[in-house]
């Protein structure tokens, strides 16, 4: 599923986006001049203006954005880099798009849970006002539905992890999808449930959708009881081996889901998304070998954490941005050795490959150009 609802550009804007315009405005580029008139006039940089902020619960808000014409649309499940400037400083976080691809005004929304000591999430929830300019990226991420959407799929989420799968559900509905979908969501309580109203509406209007809500801290209230277990899938009549599944939520939930699918030999049916880099197990058996920081001429014993953390511990200050595998600012060359991606679990052992050190940990001896 995908969309490109970009309004067609007029001739002037198309000329401004050419390489000739770039050469004429070198070295700064054409956007540097356009933004002097209006920050939304940029032809390359994606920006948007906040059109509405909706409080979903006491601790979550939806921010609706009108992007400029550099935005090329999104696939449900993707996220955007979202930068706000407060007191002269831009802070960038990543949020999944929570709206349907079918909005005909070209807008999209993100929905944010305010963490107690979270800077940006609290700012969005409490202070963000319509009219604010937001610095965006194109939509990114592989946690998406395929072009040909299969039947019998499961969308599973916990807490604020509902956002990308909600976008999938709403987009399917608006695209006229009619094959069965199970939507299984875990919230602490009904009051904490972010899209209660929207889900109720889906229940009322979409016979093909089975919506099941579980309130982990309100025994007796939801459709099922307690935290996610394999038994919940059994109760819903879901067989992991035959159910394409998209899951997003806290690391604990995702780990349990992963184990369940692994035990059923159904790993390939499962796609997952993390909002936060899962804590790496310090006692992991593969925390062996030596991490060589080549440019610094340092060797440190591998302690099982990410390469970024270990390099910092050794006194280096590698560049980083998001620390969660999104922005690629921390990319360095791995000269040799094997690393495990802590998000996907994938192990890569090529020589001279670029890796993001914030989400990779060494497996045995590794040498990086740091």
């Amino acid at each position: 599923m995908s969309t490109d609802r970009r309004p067609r550009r007029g001739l002037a804007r198309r000329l401004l986006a050419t390489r000739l315009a770039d050469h004429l405005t070198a070295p700064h580029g054409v956007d540097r001049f356009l933004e002097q008139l209006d920050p939304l006039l940029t032809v390359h940089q994606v920006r948007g203006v906040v059109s509405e902020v909706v409080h979903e619960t006491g601790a979550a808000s939806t921010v609706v954005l009108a992007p400029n014409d550099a935005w090329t649309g999104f696939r449900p499940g993707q996220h955007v880099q979202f930068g706000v400037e407060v007191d002269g400083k831009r802070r960038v976080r990543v949020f999944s798009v929570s709206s349907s691809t079918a909005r005909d005004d070209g807008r999209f929304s993100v929905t944010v849970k305010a963490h107690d000591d979270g800077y940006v999430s609290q700012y969005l929830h409490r202070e963000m006002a319509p009219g604010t300019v937001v610095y965006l990226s194109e939509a990114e991420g592989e946690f998406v539905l395929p072009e040909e959407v299969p039947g019998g799929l499961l969308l599973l989420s916990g807490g604020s992890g509902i956002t990308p799968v909600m976008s999938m559900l709403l987009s399917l509905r608006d695209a006229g999808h009619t094959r069965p979908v199970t939507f299984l969501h875990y919230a602490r309580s009904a009051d904490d449930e972010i899209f209660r109203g929207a889900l109720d509406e889906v229940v009322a209007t979409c016979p093909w959708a089975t919506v099941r809500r579980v309130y982990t801290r309100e025994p007796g209230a939801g459709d099922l009881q307690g935290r996610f277990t394999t038994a919940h899938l059994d109760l819903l009549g879901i067989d992991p081996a035959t159910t394409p599944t998209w899951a997003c939520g806290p690391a604990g939930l995702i780990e349990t889901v992963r184990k369940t699918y692994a035990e059923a030999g159904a790993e390939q049916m499962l796609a997952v998304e993390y909002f936060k880099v899962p804590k790496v197990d310090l006692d992991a058996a593969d925390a062996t070998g030596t991490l060589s920081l080549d440019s610094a001429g340092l060797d440190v014993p591998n302690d099982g954490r990410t390469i970024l953390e270990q390099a910092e511990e050794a006194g280096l200050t590698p560049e980083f941005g998001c620390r969660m595998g999104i922005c690629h600012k921390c990319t360095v060359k791995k000269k040799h050795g094997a690393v495990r991606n802590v998000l996907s679990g994938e192990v890569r052992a090529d020589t001279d490959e670029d890796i993001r050190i914030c989400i990779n940990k060494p497996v045995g001896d590794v040498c990086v150009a740091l």
Partner: protein
Amino acid sequence: MLTTLLNIGKGPVPSASDHDERPRPLVSETDPERRATVGLDRLTYEQLDELAVELDAIRQRVLDDLGQEDADYIRRVVKVQSGLEIAGRALMFLPFIPPAWLAGVASLSLSKILDNMEIGHNVMHGQYDWMNDPALNSKQFEWDIVGPAAGWKMTHNYEHHTFTNIHGKDRDIGYGLVRIDEDQPWHPVYLANPVLAFGLMFIFEWGVMLHDLELDKLQSGEETWEQVKARNAGTLRKIRRQVVKDYVLFPALTGPFFLSTLAGNFSANIVRNIWAFNVIFCGHFPADVETFSEESAENESRGQWYLRQVLGSANISGSKVFHILTGNLSHQIEHHLFPDIPSRRYPQIAPEIREICDRYGLTYNTGSLGKQIGSVAKKLFTLGLPPRKDAAATPAAARRDDDLAA
């Protein structure tokens, strides 16, 4: 105390834009225990430590205070610069109205001056990295000048700012072209000192670009030709872009006025060259600015590093607009003490720095542009002549060390 202050030389060679935060002192390879002698003719080790504490406190206070006003300021400068650039380019289409061409050259010259100095130089020092805006980030910024940002950040941010005025380490002493300090050995070539400097003034941007190529590393055997080529890979591309823009594309766009536009763009580049040359030569070369020997600075403390920055720099007095057009390099002393603090802060802290210098008996070298240029010119003339025998026998840096030993 001293050991904690000295604890700043650990780790790998810092990247060009990180170094400002923790300048790396020279470390003696033969004698790690020896203490640097820089500044001992004026202050004791204890006083030098106190100086470091006072200056560190000012630095921290300003850093803690950075915010919206600083962001607004640099964005305002960018806005003015962008406007001047557009006006300058547009006026070139009207050369048949006599003052339009001149006004175009003036606009474009000012645009290039602001771009290179108050914006480029300062952004590339990381003064606005805290804003986290890619357009104002030291790692990403590129300026309107032929030399690419990367080479300049290496020779200027790292080498010149870390090893300020240390012979054999700071390649900015005379730019390998002129003799501007008594401790540079004399050579008959320097008879042409004033002519060389005068010539350099007009082609300054090309001089800076050549300087940043660091071709001398090839001569000294420090790098192979392959290494020199790899390090400077971006330079040809940058030159091509600049030349095509100013001397092909914009002239062509103005059609029948090709030549007048080309001449206008050329003039703007020359005006910028003359201005930048003068400001920069006044930063470190006026009389009484001190240079240092490598041994005297080995294993220096933070206080000694600070002292070297004060004594090795000179300010230029002037109006607010003048300061902005120099990129606040007219506050060279404050800039050298705190290279990564936004330049608009330098005038604000200058009275305090001056008071500290007075209290510690350190010369705070300042004067009008005329006075500083005069002083540099005089040195260019006198140092171009062969040194008198007695003075040549004992270079100034050695003399200072002897005084100490005595």
